[in-house]
Structures are given as structure tokens and as C-alpha cells.
């Protein structure tokens, strides 16, 4: 059987590991932070750039580059905010890290804070994640008690505080600028960009928002020979291991830590143990519910950013949702569309109206009132949200609609009205 590559999960996969600070330290924890405190912040950013790590939050933006964009000399404080709002349907990887090895993520956050000169880091956690919130708070308490947070940790002279902030359960607050609004105590509405958070973010100060998993990679990258090793975990431009949330009709769903040169087919049939009940594969939503759907004969592809992009889809938050031959694709699309209609913040016209309207049309199909005209309309309404909105939620809602209509048109025909 294929093996995981354990970097982020090296402790989690150890049955004896108890996630306490002492256990984390025993496993080599906080060595990287110690090393980082001996480096210049710019050197840290440079190492991160060289590792080639791309953000694990969905967009795959190079993290080192993001940090190098942070406005300098503004006279304002800088902030690092960890995005732990994990709410893209299918995604459940950050939860594993926060719940089972919070110190690895927090060390990564601290390294990031040092790299961008932030003295107060925030973790914005999804409101429904009660156990993760508890786990993080306990871990932060341990760090303060140990002196690793607060004044002058490890004699570095670098004072650092971390606050765990809980959201109220809105998908849109995972979008970085809405997250910052929410963190400031306002309604979570995505902001106009530019200015990007690196120039004007939390309270108008330079801010970097990074995904939990992205930050959790930092202790490895800044460890001994980390940069080189990290690059070797995947093809060029797709470095590192990543956490794949595998769900749906597979025999062994779960979160797997994989290299970036693993074939999607193998993820389904080797790691996932194949389709349950011996059924045939119908399709896969490869990277969270917003990514364009793939049919069964498209899944022979390396599961990483670039190879999926070449196939016209995306890896997003690496959440694979597998569905078998018995699945009603129209119902599936209805469920996805309902999610986006419910989670749209509603401020921009195409997303507010389009998510709801397209849901109404799909429901009309499910009621047996479909028609060729309505299918074209669905595709048009979906397409009209694409690239026309303020934040990427409009795209996220459009992509499944357009791809489902394109790849499974005959499934919609089943719901045409019979006259």
C-alpha cells in the first residue's frame, strides 16, 4: 500500500504523542524557532521564498512573496493573522492540525510573526470548531507559562503575543479581507482590493493572512536542510507535502499527508481504498466544492496545483470529494449551490442575485420542470457570476455550475418536463 509522507503529521501519526508542549519539544519542536531567532527577518522570508511553498488556503499564492510585499517603514504595526476559518465544503485538514498538534502550527505562526515583524499574531478560528478552539487556547496558555510567548521568548528580545479569536460561523469570513473586517468587530464583508492587506489590513495596518497548514509547514522549512527537502516533495513549483481531505464514496475517507507528485487515481484507489460497495467512480470534485468537477476518466493526473490547472480545474484547499455512479449529480449541484447562496455576503449584485437564482433554477429541475432553455439559462446565470464580483465567492459559485452543466448534461435531461 502506498505510504503517506509525514512532515506535518509526523507527530499526529505517532499513537503515543499527546500534543502537550513537552511532547512537542521532545519531538524536536521549537528548534526551528530558536534557529529563526538567530536570523534576520529578511533571511527568513528569503528561505520561505526558496522553499517554493504556495498557500494552502485555496489560491496557492507563494507565501514568501506574500510576506515580501508587506509594507515597510509605515510607522504602523504589522500583523500576521492565521486563517483557521476552514469552511470550504470538503475541507477538514486545518482542524487535524489544531486539534492534534497545535504547537506545530503555533510555532509556524511564531516564525511567520518574526519574519514580518509582527508582535501580535491572531488566529481566526471557525466558530463551530469548539474542540479546536479549546485545543488552541490550551496550547497558547502552555506557551505563555513556558515563556515562549510574551516578553523576550528564548532571550530573543522579540516580544510576541498570540490571540485566539473565534468567528461566528460564516464561510465568507474565510475570505481574507472579510476575515479582517470580522476580526475588527464589523460585519464580515470582503473589501475592495487594492489596497491589499499587505498594505492596509487589520485596523488599516500591513497584514498577512495565511492558512493554518501553510504556517504549520514553517518549522520544517526552517529546520535543518528544510528548504531542499521541502522542494523535493513535489514537482517544480509544487513543493512540499500537503494535507488532502478525502471524502465521499471511498472506503477510507480521511485526511492524508501526501507528496505533490501522487496521482489522483492512487489517492482514490490506494489511500481511499477504492469506491465503497464496489461501485464505479462517476466523478470527483477535486479541490473543495468550488473547484470545477472532473469525470471518472479525467482522474489520471498528478494531484498538485499546476497539473490540475492544466486540466481546467484547481486544487484549491485539496479537498477531494469522490462520488459514485449512483450519485444524482443534479442534487449534488443543488446542494453546492444552496451552500453558496446561503453563504454569499450579498453585497455585490451578480453573486447576491446569481447564487440564489441559479439555485432556484436547479430546484426547478429537481421538481421535474427542467428544459433545454432552462439549462442554457442556468449556464448563463452561472457564467455571469464568473469574474464579475468583488471577491472570489462569485467564481466559487460559478465554477461548479458551469462544469456540472458541461460535463453531465444528460443528467439534467432526466429532469426535463415531459409534455
Amino acid at each position: 500500500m502506498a505510504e503517506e509522507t509525514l512532515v506535518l503529521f509526523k507527530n499526529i501519526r505517532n499513537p503515543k504523542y499527546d500534543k502537550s508542549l513537552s511532547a512537542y519539544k521532545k519531538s524536536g519542536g521549537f528548534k526551528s524557532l530558536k534557529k529563526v531567532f538567530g536570523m534576520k527577518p529578511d533571511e527568513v522570508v528569503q528561505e520561505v521564498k526558496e522553499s517554493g511553498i504556495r498557500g494552502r488556503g485555496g489560491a496557492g499564492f507563494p507565501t514568501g512573496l506574500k510576506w515580501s510585499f508587506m509594507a515597510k517603514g509605515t510607522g504602523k504595526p504589522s500583523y500576521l493573522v492565521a486563517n483557521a476559518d476552514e469552511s470550504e465544503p470538503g475541507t477538514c485538514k486545518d482542524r487535524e492540525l489544531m486539534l492534534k498538534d497545535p504547537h506545530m502550527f503555533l510555532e509556524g505562526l511564531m516564525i511567520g510573526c518574526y519574519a514580518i515583524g509582527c508582535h501580535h499574531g491572531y488566529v481566526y478560528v471557525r466558530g463551530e470548531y469548539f474542540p479546536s478552539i479549546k485545543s488552541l487556547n490550551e496550547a497558547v496558555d502552555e506557551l505563555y507559562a513556558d515563556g515562549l510567548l510574551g516578553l523576550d521568548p528564548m532571550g530573543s528580545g522579540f516580544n510576541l503575543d498570540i490571540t485566539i479569536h473565534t468567528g461566528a460561523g460564516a464561510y465568507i469570513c474565510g475570505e481574507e479581507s472579510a476575515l479582517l473586517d470580522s476580526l475588527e468587530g464589523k460585519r464580515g464583508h470582503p473589501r475592495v482590493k487594492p489596497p491589499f492587506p499587505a498594505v492596509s489590513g487589520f485596523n488599516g495596518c500591513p497584514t498577512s493572512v495565511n492558512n493554518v497548514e501553510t504556517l504549520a509547514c514553517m518549522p520544517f522549512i526552517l529546520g535543518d536542510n528544510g528548504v531542499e527537502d521541502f522542494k523535493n516533495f513535489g514537482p517544480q513549483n509544487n513543493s512540499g507535502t500537503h494535507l488532502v481531505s478525502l471524502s465521499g464514496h471511498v472506503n477510507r475517507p480521511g485526511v492524508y499527508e501526501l507528496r505533490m507528485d501522487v496521482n489522483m487515481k492512487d489517492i482514490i484507489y490506494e489511500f481511499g481504498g477504492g469506491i465503497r460497495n464496489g461501485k464505479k467512480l462517476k466523478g470527483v470534485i477535486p479541490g473543495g466544492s468550488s473547484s470545477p468537477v472532473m469525470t471518472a476518466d479525467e482522474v489520471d493526473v498528478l494531484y498538485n496545483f499546476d497539473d490540475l490547472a492544466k486540466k481546467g480545474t484547481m486544487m484549491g484547499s485539496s479537498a477531494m470529494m469522490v462520488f459514485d455512479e449512483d450519485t444524482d449529480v443534479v442534487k449534488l449541484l443543488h446542494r453546492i449551490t444552496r451552500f453558496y447562496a446561503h453563504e454569499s455576503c450579498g453585497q455585490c449584485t451578480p453573486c447576491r442575485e446569481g447564487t440564489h437564482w441559479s439555485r432556484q433554477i436547479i430546484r426547478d429541475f429537481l421538481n421535474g420542470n427542467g428544459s433545454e432553455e432552462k439549462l442554457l439559462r442556468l449556464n448563463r446565470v452561472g457564467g455571469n457570476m464568473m469574474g464579475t464580483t468583488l471577491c472570489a465567492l462569485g467564481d466559487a459559485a460559478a465554477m461548479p455550475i458551469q462544469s456540472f452543466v458541461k460535463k453531465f448534461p444528460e443528467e439534467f435531461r432526466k429532469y426535463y418536463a415531459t409534455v
Partner: protein
Amino acid sequence: MPLFKGFNMPVFDIDGELVEYEPGEKILSAALRCGKIIPHYCYHPGMSIVATCRMCLVDVVDMGNGRPAPKLQTACSMDATEGMKVETLNPKVEEGRKLVNEFLLVNHPLDCPICDQSGECTLQDYAFEYGSGKSEMDYSKRVSGWRDIGSFVALERNRCIQCSRCDRFTREITGTNEFGMFNRGHELTVDTYADRPMTNKFQGNMADICPVGAITEKEFRFKRRAWKLKKNRSICTGCSTGCNVTIEHDRNEIFRLKPHENQSVNKWWLCDEGRLTYRIMNERKTRIHQPLGRVEGKLEGISWEEAYSAIAERVGDLSALPEEVLALTDTHASNEELFLLQKLLKDIFSSDNIFCPLPTWEQSESEFFINTLITTDNTPNRAGALALKIKGDAKSTKLKKAIENELKVVFVLGNPFEAEVEVQEKIKRAQLVVHLGTFHNSWSEIADVVLSGQYYSEKEGTFTNKDQRVQATEIAVKALRRTRPEWQILMDLSASLGHGNSYSSSADVFNAMTEQVKSFADLSYAEIRLFGKELNHKTKDSGMKVVKAHT
């Protein structure tokens, strides 16, 4: 400031025309300034940019670096840059607008026939321009319901297009935060917090900035179709700020006042109290409809000639000394009227016994500009009276000294010293009291002759506001048949008393004033007509006391 604005300003290209912009300015703002029309809803020059309606899409074919933008851009949020090329009319843009407009209409009630916004609704305009005329929406529309949100405005939420202008208004302009957005997604809507009615004194502006008929003025509801209204520029005389307004009227009836943008005075805003002053313009019951003369103790209608000759005869008989003559005026009189009254006294009686009430007033400081609009100073032409050196003080002490003399001839313009019973008692005993005014008041009750004047919506005139900016009003509606503008009455009166002036219009009087009164020197009527102009020679003490806002 450079001699002409474009001297040092960078330029970019809109539809083949070079447009100048200030560094950091957005495409839409620069375009609007140059008279280009780009459809938009959420953008308002006085508030923050949210770029959410997505209507202002333009095609940036060259971002200034030789490369086109990857997709249509919202003009309200994109910085103009040197060498940028923007197309606002190509098929791609039209297609983009069309689809945004379609989305805006899927849940819109389109009840234009009963909507007060109809005729001045940009949604209606753009739907007409970009809409297909046929809806593809087969399902029932969203219903959010009507809400009673305050004394001044009505909220019909079904018509709301969620542009958030109203929300930003109470956050950014009034700072009162009593109004906001609720719910999410297609249920996003607007309301007041905790069901409380709105309290800010500027609610009417929310109706102005709401691009559709969701927020409308209660006062105007169902009264007139907007396209029937004729509009004239004027100045609100509710207080000494002198907000620029348009008086909107139909068939000689005035229906509303709307703010007229003037960045040096009221920006885009107007207070609710000022808006309500339209009511008095339509008032007929207490109006003085024609000249009146006292016959056997009772006021009776007389002709203008009878009035003038009666006054001339009495004045001749009385041969009053300068100190036996008195003129009182309020500060609702225009600069020209004050000037002519003062001149009449000087020319005929060699007297400078002219007084007006000048109460002191306090202006509280505020971090919100709009709060400086309403002043407690309801003397709209105080600064004009001061510039003409008309006498007066907060406690009327100077006046009380002047009325110690045996008075023979008294002229009263408007309704000055209305609450000063003592003054009125004294003046009652004068040999001849002439009242010029628009409304009956305690002065017309004691006057021997009453001359019927006109309200400022019916005549021309200039007013000097608290910042000593001279601004002009226009004739909006036709005056009552047997009334005359006060400047003309004063001129005629002067002529019948043997000292003719031949001014043919209020503007003519203004020009004479600029020659004869130092404070008004170097102004021309043409120059003040659009946005007004501050006096070149200002009065030092305007009676204003700035007080710190109590927090």
C-alpha cells in the same frame, strides 16, 4: 494653485478623449468630473468606495503599461494612471452592464407606476437602456417588506438594490450609526437597529442618495411625478449656512427643496428642517396679498399709487429730523433690500437710524462636516447686514436708546424684533409706521401702511452666509398678483419721496452696491451666480462663538 488646473495634471484616455486626473483619483471620479457618463449605483463621491453594485464596468484596454486588464474593471475602484486607455462604450462593456442590470432586476418589483422615484431613478434609466425588456426570471420574487424607519423618510425594502449608500451615510456622514445592513446573500437588506426610529436630522439626504425608490421623503410621497417638476437654483434661508438648493415646483406650487452640490457650502447635503421650509413658500392664509392702508383704525386694501402717495403726503407733513426717523429690518431681507432701505433713509432723511437684530450664536465643533450645516443662527443674511454696517447687537440696547427719541417715521422690513414688546409699544406711538413684508405679523397690526412684498422663492436677491459668501436666489414661482419685490417697493418709495433711483433689476442694485459699499467691492453678479463668492473685505466679528462639542 496653478493658473489653470490642467497645467500639471497627468492625463489618461477615455474613449479617445484625454481626461486629467489627480494622483490617486479613480477612473469613475475623473470621468464624471469631465462630464462622461458611466452608469453607477454604489459609488458616491462623498463616501467610501465599496465597488459592490458592479454597474460601473469599463474596459481598460491599456493599463498604462501597454497591457490590457484581464477582465472588465469597476471604474469606481480602479486608480487612473498615466497613459491608461479606458473604453466605456464597446460591446464588451455593454454586455457587462446588461448582465449586472439583469441581476438587479430579477428580484426588483418594478412597480414604477406607484414609485416616487420614477422619473429620477437610475435603475429605471439603465434598465431602459440596457435591459432586454423581457424577464427570464420564472420564480416568485424576494419580498422584504415595508418598514417605518423615521419621521422624515419611508423605506420600501423591496425596491432596495443593496448599494449600501444609506448604510455608509449614517456611518460616515452623520456618524449616528442608526441604520445598517442586515442578513446575508439574497436576503441582504437594510433597516434601523433594534427597530428604533432614526434620529439624525439629515434623513432626507438618504432619500437623495438612494438611487432607487427604496428610501423616499415622506413629505413628498405620492404628491407629484418627478418629471413634472421644474427646478430653480436657490439658497435655503432656514439658517445662516445658506445651503444651495433647487426649488422644485409644478403649476406654481412648490413640492420640495433638494440640495444642490456646492463643495464650498453644503457639499451634497441639506438638513431636514431646511427641506421643510418649502411649506411656508406655499403659505397663503397669512400672506399679505396687496397693499393695505389704515382707514378709521382698520386695514383696508388700497392701490400701490394710493399707498405711495399717502406715505409721501404724511412724510411731507411731518418733516422729521434724522433722529426722528427709524428703520428696522430682519435678516431675511436680501443684500439689495438692506442696501436700498439704508439708502432711502440716508437720501431722504439724512439718517442712519437703521437697525436689525443680531443675536449671538454658538456653533458647536464636530468631526462630522454635516453637523456644521445646521446652525442655531436663523438669520440668513446676518453677514450681509454686518457688511452694510447696519446697526444691531445681541441685546438690542442700541435700538432701545434710539427709540428714546420722539419717533415720527418708522419703516419696518419683514419681522424684526418680533419678541420685543417694549420696542413695539414705543413704535406704535410713532406718527407713521410703514411695514414691508410677506406675512401678517405684529408689525402689520400696528402699521399705518402695509406694502405687500414677495417671498424669496418669488424674486431675485443675494444673501451673505455665515462664511460671508454671497450667493444668489432665482425666481422659482410666479408671485401673487398684487405683490412686488421689496427692492422694487423701496425704489418706488424713494422715488415718490423725491429721490429717484433707476435700477431695473435686483442684479442692477447689486452692481450699484459693489460700487458704493466697500465690503462688496470687486464682486460681480455673474460671478456669484453659480456657486457664490466670499466677500473680499470681510467683517471681523460675525457674532459666532465656536463651542467644543460635548462628548
